[in-house]
């Protein structure tokens, strides 16, 4: 019969063995009804113009171009953190120059894109940029084009992780935490952007009021998906 001390030794050994190994990153994914609809469109047509506004994803580029579509990447959240966009407003406090932002970003001909993947950009972007960005997207999208965006519900909480999304050949999206160097911080210090606000349904409808139709999908992970038709 083993003594109490032997058992204790075995317990501590097994505990230390469990913590000694390297942490295995957990692969996260989520089902997306909106992406399911976009996937059907991508599979049924060729030569679509797609704008991916998430963090640059080699996987997405390969997926879209492999299906014969044209892929445009523009990481608007990262571009919006450019310190050169900061100006002093009338009260002397720092604000983002939305005019300059749109002179440098989303510069495309009118009616150019069939599909825009906005992902969770509106929730993490500086508030003053959201409406001008959506208005610019309206201009660069073709009539009948689709836009997919994700919005957090109030249940998500302010520390909700910012993800980038990798498309798969189904309605599942692989998720990866977004981290990058923030302005005013050392380049080696990478942080995840913080949720700026939570839009309610009326805000979302107002945001896309110039579009033809808007469809909401309520997901289980405190997210609402919005599929908008230009």
């Amino acid at each position: 019969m083993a003594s109490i001390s032997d058992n204790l030794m075995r317990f501590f050994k097994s505990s230390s063995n469990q913590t000694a190994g390297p942490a295995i990153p957990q692969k996260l994914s989520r089902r997306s009804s909106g992406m399911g609809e976009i996937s059907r469109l991508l599979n049924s047509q060729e030569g679509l113009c797609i704008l991916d506004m998430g963090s640059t994803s080699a996987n997405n580029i390969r997926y879209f171009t492999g299906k014969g579509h044209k892929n445009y990447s523009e990481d608007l959240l990262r571009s919006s953190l450019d310190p050169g966009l900061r100006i002093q407003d009338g009260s002397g406090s720092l604000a983002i120059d939305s005019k300059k932002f749109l002179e440098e970003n989303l510069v495309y001909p009118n009616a150019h894109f069939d599909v825009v993947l906005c992902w969770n950009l509106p929730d993490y972007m500086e508030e003053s940029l959201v409406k001008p960005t959506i208005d610019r997207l309206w201009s660069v999208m073709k009539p009948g084009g689709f836009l997919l965006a994700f919005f957090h519900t109030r249940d998500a909480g302010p520390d909700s992780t910012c993800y980038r999304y990798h498309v798969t050949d189904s309605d599942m999206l692989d998720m990866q935490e977004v981290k990058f160097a923030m302005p005013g911080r050392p380049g080696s210090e990478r942080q995840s952007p913080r949720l700026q606000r939570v839009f309610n349904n009326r805000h979302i409808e107002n945001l896309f009021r110039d579009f033809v139709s808007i469809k909401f999908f309520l997901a289980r992970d405190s997210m609402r998906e919005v599929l908008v038709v230009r």
Partner: protein
Amino acid sequence: MDVSQTGNGAHIGKSVVIKGELSGSEDLYVDGNVDGKIELRNHSLTIGPNGNVKADISAKSVVIQGKLDGSINASERVELRKSALVTGDVTTQRIAIEEGAFLKGKVDVLIEASKAAAPGS
């Protein structure tokens, strides 16, 4: 493998500034400033971590670790390392992008001639 690792080819150091057209028939490593056009056709170009290039690039393969403002036309492959900041369109057969790389532009991945010719591939 990029030019800095092989030790072959020409090297433009980080204090060098070049304005104009660069063309050559050997691999090139740019860690300085180039403003103009780079044409290497059957050779590789690497933009090092200190490289700041404003040029349209034409080469066999391109590896970017620094900053590029201009288009890339690579007959074989393009590799964007995690520190890459690229604003411009990319046309290539193969592309690899490390996490953290920034790309703003259109990507055209051309189908390899051998694959396109192979029936049922």
